[in-house]
């Protein structure tokens, strides 16, 4: 599985990961090398084998609908890089591409 530069850039957009030119080149080679070695997975016959998403059998976990304490707003906001009053401050979303 050889990845080209365009493939790396496509993945970077999906991951919202800014990459330098040097990183694009390095990841192109490293990810290709890693994926090539992982192609052995395709040798395994998994016909009729269900996927495992979790090592324990998970069922829906419910709790009774009771009000419990949550963190006060000022503590939730205490690590925010930008805030305005009781809000996280974000850059304009609408009108951007």
């Amino acid at each position, binding site marked *: 599985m050889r*990845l080209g530069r365009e493939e790396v850039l496509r993945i970077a957009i*999906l*991951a919202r*990961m800014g990459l330098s030119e040097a990183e694009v080149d390095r990841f192109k080679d490293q990810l290709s090398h*890693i994926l090539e070695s992982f192609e052995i997975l395709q040798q395994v016959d998994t016909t009729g084998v269900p*996927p495992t998403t979790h090592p324990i059998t998970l069922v829906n976990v419910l709790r009774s609908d009771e009000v419990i304490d949550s963190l006060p707003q000022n503590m939730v906001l205490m*690590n925010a890089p930008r805030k305005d009053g009781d809000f996280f401050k974000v850059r304009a979303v609408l009108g951007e591409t």
Partner: protein
Amino acid sequence: MSVILDPSRLTIHKAHELLKTGQLSSVELTRACLERIQQVEPKVSALVTITDRLALSQAEQADRLIASGDSSPLTGIPVIIKDNMCTRGVRTTCSSRMIEDFVPPYDATVVEKLNGARAVIVGKANMDEFAMGSSTENSALFPTHNPWDLERVPGGSSGGSAVGVAAGEAIYALGSDTGGSIRQPAGFCSVTGMKPTYGRVSRYGLVAFASSLDQIGPLTRDVTDCALVLNTIAGYDPRDSTSVPCPVPDYTRCLSSGLGGVRIGVPKEYFVEGMQSEVAAAIRAAVSKLEELGARADWGVSLPHTSYALASYYVIAPSEASANLARYDGVKYGFSYSDTDNMWEALEKTRQYGFGPEVKRRIMLGTYALSAGYYDAWYLKAQKVRTLIRREFDQAFEKFDVLVTPTSPTVPFRIGDKAEDPLQMYLSDVCTLPINIAGLPAISIPAGFAGGLPIGMQIIGKPFSEETILKIAYAFEQATDWHKQKPNI
């Protein structure tokens, strides 16, 4: 102080005796650890944060509790916490520039439990960034050095935790293990390290890496201490819906020295090509020792899907990581690129400058494996192989109580040796990561040395068989003195 205090040789159970009988105070013990930290930290760099003031105030509280006669086994005893577990008011960095200044507003459940036992937190341990790595070289802050040879890695990702215990900076530590991150550094530093069954210990407040694989566990100086720490941290937590509501036994009660009737399997696939011959020899000798103690060993067990575990793991773990680490957007906490008004640019540059190379590599790998057109061939395929690996273990445990393998294929390697080749680095987890894939419990205990460098033995059990594992590890420990050897530092 009426005893000669060397904090690097004290166990939890010995310290507890000294505290309870008034031969030692928690403040004295804590001061001794803090002095030891000052002495060895310039050489090993195991700690991201030293919490000396917090520790001394916790020690004073512990001494009051002990004086009132109401102490528990961990009361007043210094511990180091891996820096991916939230500590209220104490920064929790994951050894990443991304959250270098993050101060959690709450405690992880395990930290809450230690605080409830009046433990003394002396520091937060260095690690591979976001727990991604096998050498602690991926810390964005600084590398940690192995106390057995300062030019070698301590293993990872819980390298700081293992070194803290091995070098005497605290009496025990907590680590986390996603593919071997407790056991491999425990093996490399000659301490005891256990990854409990998935679901045994709450992950609430553990910064997520790969949520179906992550598990918190103890790093200690002996097996008794491991059982004591597990007693405190195990159990159901409504805040972690993957924690399992089954009762927590007293793990110290299973510690007895006879191994009559115990059935051990030695899977041949774990003695891989490229394994150092001294490591294989040490583990064979260790299994012979277990036979001497009464166990029956089958040396011909085969787990043929083992050779696919590495590829399966390194598709699943990065996929989960790419989803979990999407939260680092520079809005809620952490590093935030500020030199733009464009939302997308801010997001991309925050992640470009905030994450280190291995974290980016794994996010990219996982994003690819989950992306449209590749999901079935990579992520889904890896999950199906995961099923086959788990089934193979389940079948083996119909015949055996435990499986015994080396913890790592080699002794600790030199700093820098594998840093440029990610795939080589991934191979150092080859013996440990199948256990996370299957969600099983496993321990690494000291089992020998080659050229003065530690060798770890891994004992793997079926889900929730921690008692069986601890019993076998304890019997081995009582019959050997590998765990008593300490690095000269």
